[in-house]
């Protein structure tokens, strides 16, 4: 009996040690340093939502130990373990609740050879508006052609829970690989969503009102299956680009790779009838990246006017003239009742400035449009010259978004459901791996300093070797399991049928300029 008692006490002690939080003492004596500490990820002076996971960071200063003190309205919390600052999730939640609409002061102390050093404090501003609790992305090694392991993952950003939505290993065989890409949701919800699978067990997985079907969107009348998708916000239709895409490789340039289309069009897929029809299929236009405005009254897209000089090898020609491909921003009105599109309107003439636009996204309040803009081409994830730009939809004024761009590639911007948060892919960490960055977008149309998606281990991004492609906000998690997707993936796809429609076009074939410009 005595032994049992000892055992229970021992167990309790172990539990208490395990459950207790390590709150190190702030050093009593230190020398002040007049600069902010070098921390990774860079979280100084960022604006964060009140429901974000702990902003753990590593202190990258010379020294063997650190202490970080977080203070807000008289409440103080200290953390520090070696060179890492790992915050307790529950305490962080309480702190954020208190700091909502205000700020958290962070003081960092580092123990160096000759004692403790206190760095200049910095702040984390806590916004009033919450962020959507889930995001999803494709995790992919920044490879070029090979794709052994690809997964689409969802992350609860109020904590550190990450799950696979789908993983190509569930169906892939050694002989037949499978590429998965382009996850897309209707209105930030997951009951209607889609993603593509290519090569092995190819097809598009459509989740329509929570049931899954696999579609082959390639028809004899279209140049490929659907590629870049855009769910209509109210109608059961998805706009896609269809693309013939190729890749070639820089022998010396830092960008390393160019991904370019030799042909591309736009199609509309009716989810109910499995019919596909043309939206735009002009001979000398490379249309791509469709996106709807918040009401679904307009379909925005990018298009490059492109005339081949050599009729024999388009692939070879575009490889040599790749930096002449310049994408403008266009739109077409959409009649939700008849599912008919209006004429093409030029929205933003980037080509005239020798610039090129891709990946447009309209804000949920229809007031702004974000897109990536670079020197040429459309695959800006590999272009260090690409940045995030914003258009004021009322004035058509375009400006580079301040506070969120870097000298490396920024691409794939997207809005949260309340329009107060922007997320995009950035390669600023190392120029090679795309990471998800989030920035607050205030009521005045200004973006605040962006922060990297927090991870439990602050050194995670150093040791992790996959890119976060196509980050998307979701207000709820995907509940269909990867195994359920895999079961459908193994089935034969339903073949979409082509429905011929009259396609209106007003693009000037010689210049690419639209006859009909939007009234400014």
């Amino acid at each position, binding site marked *: 009996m005595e032994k049992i008692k000892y055992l229970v006490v021992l167990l309790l002690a172990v539990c208490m040690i395990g459950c207790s939080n390590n709150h190190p003492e702030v050093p009593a004596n230190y020398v002040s340093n007049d600069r902010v500490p070098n921390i990774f990820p860079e979280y100084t002076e960022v604006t964060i939502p009140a429901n974000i996971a702990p902003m753990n960071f590593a202190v990258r200063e010379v020294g063997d130990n650190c202490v970080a003190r977080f203070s807000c309205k008289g409440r103080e919390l200290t953390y520090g373990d070696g060179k890492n600052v790992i915050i307790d999730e529950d305490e962080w939640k309480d702190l954020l609740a208190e700091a909502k609409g205000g700020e958290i002061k962070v003081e960092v102390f580092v123990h160096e050879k000759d004692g403790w050093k206190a760095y200049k404090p910095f702040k984390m501003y806590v916004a009033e508006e919450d962020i959507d609790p889930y995001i999803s992305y494709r995790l992919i090694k920044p490879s070029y052609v090979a794709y052994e392991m690809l997964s689409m993952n969802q992350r609860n950003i109020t904590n550190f829970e990450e799950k696979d939505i789908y993983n190509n290993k569930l169906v892939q065989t050694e002989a037949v690989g499978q590429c998965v890409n382009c996850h897309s949701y209707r209105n930030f919800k997951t009951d209607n969503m889609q993603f593509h699978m290519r090569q092995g067990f190819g097809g598009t997985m459509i989740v329509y009102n929570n049931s899954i079907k696999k579609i082959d969107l390639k028809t004899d009348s279209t140049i490929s299956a659907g590629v870049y998708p855009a769910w209509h916000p109210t109608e059961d239709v998805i706009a896609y680009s269809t693309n013939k895409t190729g890749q070639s490789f820089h022998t*010396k340039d830092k960008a390393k790779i160019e991904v370019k289309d030799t042909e591309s069009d736009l199609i509309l897929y009716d989810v109910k009838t499995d019919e596909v029809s043309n939206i735009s299929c002009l001979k000398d236009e490379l249309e791509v990246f469709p996106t709807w405005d918040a009401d679904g009254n307009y379909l925005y897209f990018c298009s490059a006017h492109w005339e081949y000089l050599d009729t024999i090898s388009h692939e070879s020609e575009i490889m040599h003239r790749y930096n002449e491909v310049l994408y403008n921003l266009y739109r077409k009105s959409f009649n939700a009742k008849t599912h008919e599109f209006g004429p093409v309107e030029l929205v933003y003439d980037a080509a005239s400035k020798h610039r090129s636009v891709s990946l447009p996204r309209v804000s949920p309040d229809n007031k702004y449009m974000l897109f990536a803009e670079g020197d040429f081409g459309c695959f800006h994830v590999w272009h260090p010259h690409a940045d995030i730009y914003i258009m004021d939809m009322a004035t058509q004024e375009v400006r580079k978004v301040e506070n969120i761009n870097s000298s490396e590639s920024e691409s794939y911007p997207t809005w949260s459901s309340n329009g107060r948060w922007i997320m995009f892919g950035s390669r600023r960490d190392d120029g090679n791996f795309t990471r998800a960055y989030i920035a607050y977008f205030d009521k005045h149309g200004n973006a605040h300093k962006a922060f990297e998606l927090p991870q439990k281990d602050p050194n995670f991004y150093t*040791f992790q070797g996959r890119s976060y492609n196509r980050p998307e906000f979701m207000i709820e998690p995907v509940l269909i399991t990867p195994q359920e997707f895999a079961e459908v993936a193994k089935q034969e796809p339903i073949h979409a049928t082509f429905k011929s429609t009259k396609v209106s076009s007003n693009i000037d074939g010689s210049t690419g300029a639209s006859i009909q410009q939007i009234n400014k």
Partner: protein
Amino acid sequence: MKQIQIIVTVVFTLLAIIMLPVMNYSYLYAVQEHSLFISGHTFMMEKLSVPGGLLEWIGCYCTQFFYYPWLGSAMLIIIWLTSLCVTAKTFHLNGIGFCVGLIPICALLCSIIDLGYWLYYINNLGYWFSESIGYLILIISVFVFSKLVEKTHRLQEGEERWRDIFYLGCSSGFLVVWSILGYIAFGWWGLLGSLVMGIKETSTKPSPYVSLWILPSLACVCVVPSILYQFYTHFRFDHAWFVGFPIFQQGNFVDWKLSVPFFVIIAFVLTMAIISRWHCMENSICKKKSARFVTLCVFLGICIIIPLNCNFSDENFHSELRLYRAVEECRWQDVIDEFEEHQDSPTQQMVMCKNLALINLGLLGEKMFALNNNGVVPNSGKLKVSMIVTAGSLLYYYNGLVNYAYRWAIENEVKHGLSVKQLKMLARCAVWKDEVALAMKYITMLRSTTFYKKWAKQREKMIANISDYRDNPEYNAVSPLEISGDGELDIDNGQCMEYIISNYAYLIPQNLVQCEVAVCYAMMLKDDELIKYQLENYYSRHSIENVPKHILEIVDIYNENHTVGYQKFILDYQTKLGKGHTLGEVGKTLKPLYRTTYWWYYYFVNDFATY
């Protein structure tokens, strides 16, 4: 009887020493370069994403010790000898029966030395240890389970029923828990363990407490993977029962021969589980001393002959590994020395390494064709070896095509997992391209390994101090060959040798080194227009004195007034052709006389193997 155990142990240890560090030293060093162990949470979690991930993680940890091939070999031998002892205990292999225990460990030895070029295509980066550790764990688990079950057998005879039930509960619990945890941690080895436990303890004479362990065992083997599949996303349902089983597949081709050692182990443990209830193999095998001796000799003979036969002893394969290491360490003279030893029929990788060394020694124009410049396809059976996988990054890097070196390091990482070799190459490329943050990422990862900390620190120093970098022989090797300007957009179609050759042959050379290389590679392509263009470039920068031998030889071909040597070559050539010999036969006949000249290459080598 102890003597037999000692003889068996000593013979096997000697055999393993000969087969591993003695015969496969360079291979074992390459093994750890094709593996990777990074201490830390992220690496571990990545490995644990599949059943058996823990085993791979442990395997990766141990494999890094092949950095010192003797050390890694010693660790493996200890694991095998421990396995031998536990096997003997578990299956009651006493006396001469002890020899039988050699079967699985010899199979494991074979599974390591028979890989050959699969080294580049294997996806389990801890393979070289994980299977041996898997077997050891399997056999230990069976042993522990036997001990638990044994207690229930003993107690049947007594009156203490509650104890019987307690041990029965323990045994059942062990079986279920092992099936779950064993599967999670050790994959197929865990399941095999459960099956062996069930078979071994299934009594032919049903007792009141234990009779048919096979039933719960089979139930566990069937049910556990199908349930746990729901928690994993990294494998197909139909693969759930074989997760981690070594299958050597390239496209549609499966090299089952390499899986044979594991089939042997499966057959062995299942067979032993069935027959081990006779308790003592010794009695059932042979009773006479002479018969024992013969049995021992036969067993030992078989256990020596089979590994010797399995060993992938292709000289080119081993030479390539030594060449790659010498290239990486910029030991150019060693590259030439190694090549000269195997220059009768080298592979194209060896030829490319040799040419790289000649460039760096300033001897390309002098010796490129004098040393065999026409390689063969690697001897790899049905496995299609691609140069881009085996040496692509290395060759691209040292030929100044750093972007392509980086690309193929990444592509190979995606296909076959991140290894030390690739990580080092990625770091090299990032340092070269002055992508400091990226370089630091790779360097930090290398600093988290056991044996590459020093290498990583050196690179870190180079980043901090550019003059350190400029003094580095690697910098001096790559620098003159890098193309100037912004470069261009291109595709190599995965053919690195063709790409490197044509890249040089069509180059607009910017310095004397490039001029000489461009002429030589144009000569390799035997494109007269191209050769003349590159000769013009060469002579525009180079004085007419001290022109290398091969360049003089091509000039001799194009000149109207030929040298005596070339006239003699032409005379011999025409004489032999006139006698009705085919071009191939003439080439063979003239080879001993002219093999060191470009003339011989120009006239008789009409194609080169690419892969």
